[in-house]
């Protein structure tokens, strides 16, 4: 930071932190990559906005019918994402900022600014851009764009504000109970609504209908009214969020909010060194608040959403890929950060060096496969009818293939691009925001491709075809993993990795 003393306003502090993060990017390649990605996203949004005339009338009508659900989906993501990360992402890890007078508003604005560094957020943004194009075919595209942009901003701001409220409430036992009760109540209400066949009616009464009508409104008064409401809500949310952020960060926590001060149950020694390392790594994952919360959300949310939507068996084949990619982002893309500064001590112990990497691979594999299995089972609970053998084989094959791909990609990234990460609080991430965004693309693209290919294969009705496709994918992932483990075996590469995860 050039002049922390002079950076008093949140905007200047934010500029300072962004400048620092920019300078911390490793080499010109990363900067060019970031700028290229931003330009590519802008280009894709432009393509989506100009795609209105590309659809035939029946498809267009269906798309417009789905618009309120698409806007609602974006809203759900905008609320859930910051909730899982305890108020949103951080430009610079909080532990590195303790010596600086960074204002709560700066933290809040930083989280807002980083919200788009999320593949799902971007994909949904593209969907909303396309919807805007469809809704404004007969009216004004610029007006529709403004309303959609305000909706995106408004719902992102409100999601962040709600997340900070939850962070603040969870500092006390009473608050945690309240949050749990509210979450459980919402879940029960959702299940009851869907089970009683009222899901469609609930969707029909969603406030996003008003937004959709405003986007495509020919009547200027109606558009102005709805757009002004969104603007007002965004401003209100920003003010409330900023205040709530300060309140949450300044609120003293009780003993329960600092679990690391409580003793844990002593476990028996494991039979082998690998199992002992696995036990320590597994504990390192589940004792990290950010990973515990992220893992639970990841395992439960996609399955619940799929169950709520009663996704057909054939479409369920896509689900493992989505969940596996998300599970990899939990800690897999920087798996060695679990050891923290203990990596130095571990490296001085007389074990076969690759054992440490094998333990990480095992824990990552079981985490990804566990999340995929939970999501697939939960998601299929309300799938209509019984699955064919080909569909079951495809879901299993997609689950195994995507898990293998994600584990191989994650271990490769962990060895090639390690980062120091404390993972002490719910807001701590395993890697800087930009690195996570790149990693999400690297994981989502291959897993989505695998899912689509296997889904296409299952549509032929041949039960063996998805398995035949999955086997070489798993083998290729295995070979890649083997190369990574060999690379980790190189003392120079391992020393560099250990040094980075231990001290940054």
């Amino acid at each position, binding site marked *: 930071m050039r002049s922390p003393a002079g950076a008093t306003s949140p905007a200047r502090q934010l500029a300072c932190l962004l400048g620092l993060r920019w300078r911390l990017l490793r080499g010109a390649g990363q900067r060019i990559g970031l700028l290229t990605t931003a330009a590519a996203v802008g280009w894709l949004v432009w393509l989506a906005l100009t795609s209105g005339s590309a659809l035939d009338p029946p498809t267009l009508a269906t798309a417009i019918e789905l618009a309120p659900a698409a806007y609602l989906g974006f809203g759900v993501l905008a609320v859930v994402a910051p909730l899982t990360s305890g108020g949103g992402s951080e430009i610079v890890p909080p532990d590195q900022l303790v010596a600086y007078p960074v204002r709560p508003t700066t933290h809040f604005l930083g989280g807002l600014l980083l919200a788009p560094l999320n593949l799902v957020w971007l994909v949904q943004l593209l969907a909303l851009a396309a919807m805007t194009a469809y809704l404004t075919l007969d009216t004004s595209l610029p007006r529709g764009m403004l309303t959609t942009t305000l909706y995106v901003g408004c719902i992102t701001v409100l999601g962040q504000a709600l997340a900070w409220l939850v962070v603040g409430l969870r500092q006390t036992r009473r608050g945690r109970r309240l949050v749990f009760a509210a979450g459980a109540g919402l879940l029960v209400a959702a299940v009851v609504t869907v089970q009683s066949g009222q899901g469609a009616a609930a969707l029909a009464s969603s406030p996003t209908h008003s937004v959709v009508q405003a986007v495509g409104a020919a009547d200027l008064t109606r558009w102005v009214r709805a757009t002004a409401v969104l603007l007002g809500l965004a401003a209100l949310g920003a003010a409330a969020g900023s205040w709530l952020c300060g309140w949450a960060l300044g609120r003293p926590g009780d003993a329960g909010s*600092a679990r*690391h*001060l*409580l*003793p*844990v*149950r*002593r*476990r028996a*020694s*494991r039979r*082998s*060194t690998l199992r*002992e*390392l696995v*036990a*320590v790594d597994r*504990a*390192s994952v589940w*004792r*990290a608040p950010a990973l515990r919360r992220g893992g639970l959300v990841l395992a439960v949310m996609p399955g619940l959403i799929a169950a709520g939507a009663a996704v057909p068996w054939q479409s369920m084949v896509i689900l493992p890929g989505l969940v596996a990619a998300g599970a990899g982002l939990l800690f897999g893309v920087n798996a060695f950060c*679990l*050891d*923290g*500064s*203990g990596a*130095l*001590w*571990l*490296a*001085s*112990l*007389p*074990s*076969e060096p690759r054992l440490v990497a094998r333990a990480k691979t095992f824990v990552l594999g079981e985490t990804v496969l566990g999340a995929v299995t939970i999501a697939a089972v939960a998601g299929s609970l309300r799938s209509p009818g019984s699955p064919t053998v080909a569909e079951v084989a495809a879901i299993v094959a997609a689950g195994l293939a995507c898990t293998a791909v994600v584990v191989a990609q994650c271990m490769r990234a962990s060895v090639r691009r390690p980062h120091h990460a*404390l*993972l*002490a609080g719910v807001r701590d991430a395993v890697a800087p925001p930009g690195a996570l965004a790149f990693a999400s693309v690297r994981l989502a693209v291959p897993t989505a491709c695998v899912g689509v290919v296997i889904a296409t294969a299952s549509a032929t009705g041949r039960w063996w075809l998805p398995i035949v496709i999955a086997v070489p994918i798993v083998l290729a992932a295995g070979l890649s993993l083997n190369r990574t483990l060999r690379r980790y075996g190189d*003392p*120079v590469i391992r*020393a560099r990795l*250990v*040094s980075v995860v*231990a*001290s940054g």
Partner: protein
Amino acid sequence: MEPVLLARQLVVDFGDVRAVDGFDLSVGAGRSVALVGRNGAGKSTTMRVLAGVLPPSSGSVTVAGIDAAKDPSGVRAVVGYCPDVGGLIPRATPWEHLQLAAKLRGMKGWQDRATELLDRFDLAGVADRVTAGFSHGMGRRLSVVLATFHEPRLLLLDEPFDGVDPLGVDATLEVVAEARATGAAVFVSTHLLGLAVRACEEAVVLKGGRVVGAAPAAELTGSEGDSRYRALIT
């Protein structure tokens, strides 16, 4: 008699930066040597090389007759290392660290030794708390416990006194004395000259990755010793 630690012409390069430049050292059984110098002198890098964590760019290290380049795992089996930065797995407890060390080192019946060390370093009460909640001093003390747990032939302590209270310092000095009494060699890196003198009989002064002086530790005490030391490091 063959020295426990023998380092010859160690060089460590990080790209264009030479962190350690021709480091030579020999430490015999039952001897203790302090590595002193300013921040950035290359002390921790040297310690990492001796611990087998960082391969040297050139040079050789032999510990208890084992060549580190030929049998790195064999060297690590006889070395106990307390790293400079934490050196603890953040979400594992002290007991889990000891459990893991015992398994990786193939130790049997280690529990009594573990309990005794945790007691001595006043960590028995927090043996089942994750180390992420530890103060800096507590972390340092646990790192020393882990380094000495298996009664190594070579004890490498990197900044073991940093932020440690007087009782913790006494416990560490006691461990150093015990290690020497059992024939182990002890190598302590620190920037706290007073404690280096208390812990060790000899001192090696490092500057810019090079050894610029070596003397009996006692000669670095008092105002004359302090002036001599300052002259070496500036």
